[in-house]
């Protein structure tokens, strides 16, 4: 049995934060239906590859990677018929995931109360920058904005230098929220037989980013200095990156036992940088490992990809069609997680979902087509 067997999720998530949350739910066995409007598709579809083989204009590799395991439904929630169809699906689903700007769902008549009226036990997961309320609820952010306003940037940087960000290629807060939001949805699902009623999960990415620096708030609140320390960190006597003779950065952490081993080997702790600079990376790593010191090269993405056998096992996976996709942050032993379907094309499963889940008739579906509330039967090129 999968953790979310029997759970149906309507996924309004876009780009990373919302869509990746729903992807985790799909990994755990939920049926995830990705809902996109004919007039506003997930922008991730357009993050195209440079490689001609990946040139499908509606299925960028980033979109494929984040939306595998889901079916695809086209529905314009701003259209009265689209809204009504969505609420009908809500009545036959368990979870709705969204990360629109605050106010977008209520403006469409799809506030939590509207969803609860359609399904008294619905779980709505609202993932937002700052939370549902408060003076900054309308604040617009991308991942690195949150690092700044949540206190993480203050502690990231070279000693004495400016605060630094994870940047556009990582957008760290957008990645971690998928882990937390999915686990809170699992928590609400696990509790469903014991409670009476619907649940609205109000998930602030800014608060999550602060929560992951919890001890710095404890220290700062006690009046202790909290500042940027570069790579050094208690309890290590020395922790940093040093460049080898062949130009690779070697990351190492020297605890007390490591310092003793270095001393016995005739290498002074304060001269370690110079010592590494005189050795090729392979030789330096071999020697440091021989002394029992954790040391590894600071790999770039390409090296990480190539290190799949030794460093990681299931973080990235292949879809059934062979496409590279996000894998899993954890794995079950008896019934392993697996990717069982590709990311959906635009509205790929619209009619099937409306019939099976919404129990809609052909006439009702035709009315949606005629109103333009779902993608035309033959989808054209992406709207800009």
């Amino acid at each position, binding site marked *: 049995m999968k953790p979310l*067997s029997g759970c149906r999720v309507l996924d309004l998530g876009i780009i990373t934060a919302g869509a990746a949350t729903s992807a985790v739910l799909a990994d755990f066995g939920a049926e995830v239906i990705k809902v996109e409007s004919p007039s506003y598709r997930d922008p991730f579809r357009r993050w195209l590859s440079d*490689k001609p083989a990946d040139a499908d204009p509606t299925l960028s590799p980033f979109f494929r990677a984040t939306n595998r395991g889901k079916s695809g439904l086209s529905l314009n929630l701003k259209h009265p018929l689209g809204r009504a169809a969505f609420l009908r699906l809500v009545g036959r689903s368990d979870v709705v995931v969204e990360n629109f700007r605050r106010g977008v769902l209520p403006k469409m008549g799809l506030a939590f109360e509207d969803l609860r009226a359609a399904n008294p036990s619905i779980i709505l997961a609202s993932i937002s920058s700052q*939370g549902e309320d*408060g003076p*900054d609820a309308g604040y*617009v952010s991308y991942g*690195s*904005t949150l*690092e700044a*306003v949540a*206190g993480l*940037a*203050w*502690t*990231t940087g070279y000693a004495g230098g400016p*605060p*630094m*960000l994870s*940047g556009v*290629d*990582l957008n760290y807060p957008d*990645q971690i929220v998928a882990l*937390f939001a999915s686990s809170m949805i*699992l928590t609400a699902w*696990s509790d469903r037989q*014991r409670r009476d009623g619907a649940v609205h999960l109000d998930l*602030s990415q*800014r*608060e*999550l980013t602060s929560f*992951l*620096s*919890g001890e*710095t*708030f*404890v220290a700062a*609140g006690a009046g*202790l200095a*909290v500042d940027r320390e*570069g790579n050094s960190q*208690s309890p*290590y006597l020395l*922790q940093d*990156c040093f*460049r080898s003779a062949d130009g690779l*950065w070697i990351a*190492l952490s020297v605890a007390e036992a490591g310092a003793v081993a270095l001393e016995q080997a005739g290498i002074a702790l304060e001269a370690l940088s110079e010592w590494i600079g005189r050795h090729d990376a392979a030789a330096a790593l071999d020697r440091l490992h021989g002394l029992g010191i954790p040391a590894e090269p600071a790999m770039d*993405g*390409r090296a*990480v*990809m190539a290190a799949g056998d*030794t460093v*990681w096992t299931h973080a*990235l996976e292949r879809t059934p069609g062979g496409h*590279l996709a996000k*894998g899993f*942050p*954890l*794995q*079950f032993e008896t019934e392993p997680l697996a990717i069982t379907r590709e990311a959906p094309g635009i509205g790929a499963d619209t009619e099937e979902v409306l019939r099976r889940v919404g129990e809609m008739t052909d006439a009702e579906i035709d009315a949606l087509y005629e109103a333009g509330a779902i993608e035309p039967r033959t989808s054209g090129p992406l709207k800009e």
Partner: protein
Amino acid sequence: MRDKAPLEGITIIEWVSDGCSDAVGLAIAFAGRIAADLGATVLQIDAPVVRARAAQPPLVGDRSALSLFLDRGKQRLASLPALEDGVIVLYLGDAANVPLADRKGRESVIVATDRASPPAIPDSEFTLLAIGGLLDLVGNPDQQPLRLGGHQMAYSAGLAIYGGLVAEICRRRAGAAPDSVRVAIADVVVWLNWKSAAMGSWSNRVPTRLGDGAEWRTIRCADGWIALVYLEADWPKLKAIVQDPRLEDARYEDRLVRRGEATTINAIVEQAFAAKTRAELRVIALAHRIPLGPVWTPAELEQDPQYVARGFLPRIPDGDGGATLQPRLPVLWNGARFGAAPAMETQS
């Protein structure tokens, strides 16, 4: 406030071996803290890594800030207790201890490791960042790669451990037999860093740290720094805020050109923001709906209007007559926070 927390009736046992790594110990403690906040009974079995963490600077009184944050709401025991039948029990531990927990074949185990196949020399949290590609992304290109502040990878792994734990609770509450879940911190790091790991397969660009030349970076303002963050749709807004004719250069309408000349553009924006405070820039960001991020210190955030309004960062009694500044669990459940767990209880 809810009258029944969702994990009430669940027992979590944090049980790590004497040889448990610091990173695994932190990850397990972080997952346990979340479970405690959600109403689980969390029993932390004493171990060297637990004691070392409690003594690790910085200290607040006689306890570490780490322990005050991570171990809140747990009971510390010297050894495994006898457990009642009929209670759902989950063990969180490292590879050496947790197999022992499954002694009765009726308990779920969540096993955390540094990486799936441990190398001969143990990893540190820092070296896990290195092999996961995260170090390479932060810092200046002419300086050493840089870690993110705090214990981001251990705590991210803690999120994954909590996810595995609650996934297993879903199964158990549905009547399924116990299973084992494995979380390797290295896999979590690469999972977070999936874009740069996969980018080489989709593009000729391999992301790396660009420092001052990055599109997104922090720049100076009157009383500190602000994160300059913007996407394509924000560019006209940024120009409108900055009002510098140099940004009207038609070439800058092309993002690739802006990327290549980020250092020049950032310097122009920095000049414009030099006389503005972070508070003023926050108001501007709100008014223009542009994702600028004032860099607040952890101490300043205690008075942050948003955090105050949402009750996120209060001072919570520590059981000794004092109170510590502590972030609450970052979720509102039907508008209510889960009750702040009490400080740790120690039992023999």
